[in-house]
């Protein structure tokens, strides 16, 4: 793979990651959002694959394949089961409307470019230049956790945060040591399982799926 193909493939995949983050804000239907998330997971895995092939790093290629399997297939399947319980399946009452939240996400992307300047300066490679996209994905994830009220939307926000961090980790350091990388990926999977169990219990026992209904505990 020559350098031009390498960097354009990398740009394409990283661009797809952030694009999917925007799509999750744009679409209201939770099943469309989960599809965007699956595409994002695959794009993230492709980033690792491209980096791995470029560096002739077998471990990184393996990690890329695992990421595609976990984030492109397993987690979306788990999420779909949560949605099957949800009769409405639409984010009806976000606190911020769609155009305004897209503008907000744009502003967060600028913020990400500003905040990562010292990091980009330290890694002046074609991969390093894309690091702000990872932080932007993380911030958009945060943002969507704050403005969305469905339990499932919060899981989506958490996954965006995690994908953003994974993107930064791949681009900046070509993956932290394997043990840690695997620990982190396994962890997301477990958190999603835990959240699914809780969502099912809340739904089946108390018919709660909107976070506004979680008002039992307050000061």
């Amino acid at each position, binding site marked *: 793979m020559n350098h031009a193909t390498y960097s354009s493939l990398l740009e394409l995949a990283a661009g797809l990651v952030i694009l999917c983050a925007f799509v999750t804000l744009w679409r209201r239907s939770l099943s469309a959002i989960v599809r965007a998330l699956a595409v994002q997971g695959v794009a993230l895995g492709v980033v690792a694959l491209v980096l791995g092939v470029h560096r002739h790093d077998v471990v990184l290629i393996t990690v890329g394949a695992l990421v595609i399997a976990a984030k492109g297939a397993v987690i979306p399947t788990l999420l779909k089961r949560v949605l099957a319980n949800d009769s409405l399946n639409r984010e009806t009452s976000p606190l911020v409307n769609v155009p305004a939240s897209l503008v907000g996400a744009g502003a967060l992307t600028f913020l990400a470019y500003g*905040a*990562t*300047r*010292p*990091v980009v*300066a*330290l*890694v002046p490679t074609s991969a390093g230049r894309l690091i702000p996209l990872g932080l932007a994905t*993380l911030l958009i994830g*945060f943002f969507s*956790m704050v403005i969305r009220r469905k*339990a499932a939307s*919060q899981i989506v926000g*958490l996954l965006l*945060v*995690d994908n953003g*961090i994974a993107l*930064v*980790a791949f681009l*900046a*350091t070509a993956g*932290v*040591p394997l*043990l*840690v990388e695997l*620990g*982190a990926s396994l*962890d997301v999977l*477990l*958190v999603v399982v*835990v*959240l699914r169990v*809780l*969502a099912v*219990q*809340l739904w089946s*026992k*108390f018919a*709660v799926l909107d976070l506004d209904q*979680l008002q*039992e*505990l307050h*000061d």
Partner: protein
Amino acid sequence: MLAIVLLAVPVVTGGVAATVTWRRWVGWLCTASLGAVLSIGIVLATEVVHHPAISAWSGALRVDALSAFMVIVIGAIGFLATCQSVRYLDAEIKSGRCSIRHATLYAVLVQGFISAMLLAVLAGNVGVMWVAVEATTIITTFLVGHRKTRGALEASWKYVIICSVGIALAFLGTVLVYLAALHAGNGAHVTLQWTSLMSASHHLNPGVMRLALALLVLGYGTKVGLAPMHSWLPDAHSQAPAPVSALMSGVLLTVAFYALLRFKAIADGALGVNFPRALFVTVGLLSLLIAASLLLSQHDYKRMLAYHSVEHMGLIALGAAAGTPLAIAAVLLHILGHGLAKGVLFLASGEILLVEGTTEIDQVKALLARRPALGGIFAFGLVALLGLPPFSLFVSELNMLRAEVQVGLGWAAAISLVCMAIIFGAVMSHGRHMLFGARPDGEPVHKTPSIVTVPLIGALVGCGALGVLAWPLDNLLRAAAMVVVK
């Protein structure tokens, strides 16, 4: 070798509990396991206090004075909590709220929780430590939701969502530290070992380290319960079963703080003391202000105790900001003292909930007259927690304030004193309501079983003794402080 045995004890106990299912003796076995953890912790401490650190599994596990101290904290409070777990599960099973299967799950999860915390403080590698801290979140989620009430499930949901985001930020911070180490340019082989990061700390890129430390403080700070990411804490600590609250509030918060202490030492090397100090002072003061303002209006005694944890975490963040050997030794003593006092109070509050059936402050009256032993324990626990002599929290708070004044943080010390005074007033008025008053006519004086009184009084005596005698901990505290102070 001893470190491996230490980790194996709770893992094996959990395995036994899982295979033979819940019996009363399994409960006592779990208590014995924590007793073993505490004893091994003390042996390890005597070994490393004057000698270099012990490593096992080619550096994956590493015990220095600081780790050994944290093992003692985990062992001591864990011992108290597992002791009371037997009573909690007995009562739950008797009342039919909890099946044998559920009780088994509880026992296994508690042992898993202890193993994860031990791994976090023994890990020689920041990445492994991160995995262990995250594992505590996943395990404790089910413990928080153990009672399966709506409130408990709601608290678990908030807990796992907020802490997962927090811990994700800590992971990003760890990645950035690793990035800075990769580009440190001192030619050393780059690993995520504490030792290699510490020795490379002066060569780490300051711009990246600033961003990394901010993320780490925000991220691990979430698990510590530091503002502005504390909002899960009062819900989770008030909804969890009392022994779990005692473990979470008394130990888990400070295990996360242990991670911050280690990273602060690396950042001090890379950035100088000013930036880390500013960051710790900010989160510390913010936590104190929030705790002071929210404690005033509490009507639930378990939430009151939970906000009290936010206050104490703020205090140790301020102590860590000062960062002198005196300050860090005081922070560590405070970690142990707070753990014991808060453990006693949460366990006593579990007993109050069991016998009175409410967590409302208004509905609990005249405890001292009606239940002298339980009321007395609760009263002395509050006295300890509020930092009155002779308890060790008095000594540690005093030393932290002294250290803050010495390094020019007198203004922050003054603000923290004002917050402590407000909290003192608020807790005293809530406590007075619960404790004092006359026994209603015809109501007998209730006895509290010795399974409750003996361990809790023991812990209070220990907390008092630590405040009066510096021995046997002072050498260990000094050695542990030097691990994270240059």
